[in-house]
């Protein structure tokens, strides 16, 4: 925020103000500036008009597709539409969704998904990053490999995994079979369906986190390792006493980011199991919102559930913002 108002619209031709005032920001004019006031005011108005002319397109888009929907989300949550007439419904929508047994199941599943995703999607990229950071060869190749799935259209990765998971001829069971290991029903069993979704999701998304960890690892001063090494710290103790504390902030930021994004999971379970999965075992909160809105045309219930999700995620977002401020200047 150090750049002062530098480029202002300067009127062409005779209206050009006397040189010397051009470097002054309009708001800074002293009260006693006298006849200069009008020129400055005119320039200030002109500058603002120009600025808003540049802004208007983006402002309209934000108003229509971000700000207004945000307000509308809250309004919808307390309204109901019955046979074309919309009325205020008070807490009716909220009571309706919490009375639905699917509500609690969806939250349980979402929590379970987030839990698995943290173990896999949080720990795996970190370990991978630590290992990659030690390797001095093929660095570019390995990085490209890890990030490649992130660039694939999710439909491609997910449908691919769907074929791998097939209990009959799927690749995973074939491999397990060849290794004389017990095979699994994967997506078709209530026990493993969610885990299967998480494995696919981790494969698809871990590239981003890995590269961010790698960047953080490269910022660790080498002397720290040398110092603990003098104390005779072995490999694991070096990780514990230097690597993890030095990347603590990045780790916790990504942890929260991951919680926030995995709690909104939709595409993976929707494509892998059709959303609900065996006996609703992969119904997530966002899938339930989708069902209310687009299968049952109950926008009120969908909005109410969305509001609950929003509040839960707001807690995590709040922590994220605080941590982010700590890392900042």
């Amino acid at each position, binding site marked *: 925020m150090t750049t002062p108002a530098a480029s202002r619209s300067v009127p062409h031709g005779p209206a050009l103000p006397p040189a010397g005032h051009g470097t002054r920001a309009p708001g800074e004019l002293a009260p006693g500036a006298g006849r200069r006031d009008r020129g400055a005011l005119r320039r200030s108005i002109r500058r603002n008009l120009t600025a808003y002319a540049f*802004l208007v397109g983006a402002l309209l888009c934000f108003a229509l597709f971000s700000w207004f929907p945000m307000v509308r989300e809250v309004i919808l949550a307390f309204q109901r539409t019955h046979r074309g007439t919309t009325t205020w419904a008070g807490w009716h929508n909220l009571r309706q969704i919490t009375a639905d047994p699917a509500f609690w199941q969806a939250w349980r599943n979402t929590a379970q998904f987030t839990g698995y995703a943290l173990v896999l999607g949080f720990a795996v990229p970190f370990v991978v990053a630590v290992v990659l950071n030690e390797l001095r060869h093929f660095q570019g190749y390995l990085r490209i490999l890890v990030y490649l799935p992130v660039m694939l259209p999710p439909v491609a990765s997910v449908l691919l995994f769907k074929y791998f998971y097939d209990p009959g001829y799927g690749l995973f069971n074939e491999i397990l079979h060849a290794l004389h290991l017990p095979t699994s029903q994967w997506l078709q069993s209530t026990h493993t369906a969610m885990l299967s979704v998480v494995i696919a999701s981790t494969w698809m998304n871990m590239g981003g986190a890995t590269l961010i960890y790698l960047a953080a690892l490269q910022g660790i001063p080498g002397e720290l390792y040398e110092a603990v090494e003098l104390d005779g710290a072995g490999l694991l103790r070096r990780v514990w006493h230097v690597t993890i504390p030095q990347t603590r902030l990045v780790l916790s930021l990504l942890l929260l980011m991951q919680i926030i994004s995995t709690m909104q999971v939709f595409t993976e379970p929707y494509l892998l199991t059709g959303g609900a999965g065996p006996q609703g075992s992969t119904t997530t909160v966002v899938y339930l919102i989708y069902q209310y809105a687009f299968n049952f045309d109950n926008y009120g219930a969908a909005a109410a559930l969305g509001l609950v999700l929003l509040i839960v995620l707001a807690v995590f977002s709040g922590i994220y913002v605080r941590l982010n401020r700590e890392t900042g200047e």
Partner: protein
Amino acid sequence: MATTDLRPRTLISPAQLNRPRGRFLYWTVLALVLAVFTLVFLGPLYWMITGGLKTTHEIIQSPPTLYPHHPRPAEYGKAWSDLGLGRLLINTLYYAFGALAFQLVLDVSAAFALSKLRPVLGKAVLGMMLATLMIPATVLVVPQYLTVLDVPLIHRNLLNSPWAIWLPSVTNAFNIFLLKRFFDSIPRELLEAAEIDGAGPLRTLWAVILPISRPILGVVSIFAVVNVWKDFLWPMLTEPDPGKRTLGVGIYALSTGVTENEVIAALAIASVPTVVIFLFFQRNIMAGLSAGSLKG
């Protein structure tokens, strides 16, 4: 091994690595990592590309074949025509590059105004834009969808229209943030020089700012295209007409009606553009990732 000496010290000390045992361990780990990573990350892609060449029978054969024994490139052609991939591809390109154009014009000019013209309430506007980053996207899907069905004020239905993808793509607060931060770093002397030469704001933006902003514009553009290419839920909701679908939605919708090898061939075709973009621009993409990742 010249690169070894230039690298900063990491977890394992160079001395340790140079011992015979250290060296042996290093090369073992490297070989293992290379093998496992190639298998895990390229394996599925290999399976996808070769799967599209296999016959309907071969692809579900047990045990699976490592390579297509009777490669049939015709499967790709069949997938192309049966799933109407040409249409889907054109749609997706149209949406993606339209979104790119909208984002470049509207987000760049917004960031320019906020950074260099600094209007009254500029900070509040920026704050309100950044606040949208804190709102989980999926929560807003329902009210956004209602906006598409009946746009306030002009009362138009944007369903099945490309505008339903283009306009929301502009509300990418993160782009505006990245662009504004880059513009902030441009020294004011440059702009003053342009001003003295009599350049108005539009000319300053076009002739002074944009040319030096190429790196950040590159990052924003790549992600604009890739985001549309990867999106699923939103295009599924807003472009339901079979003739208007995107590649992802279209393939998914038709995947149950055709044979498995055709679907896999179609998936391989759909993956090509983003993979090519990635291989071409991987430097920019990875730089952009670390530029913005933590300062949301």
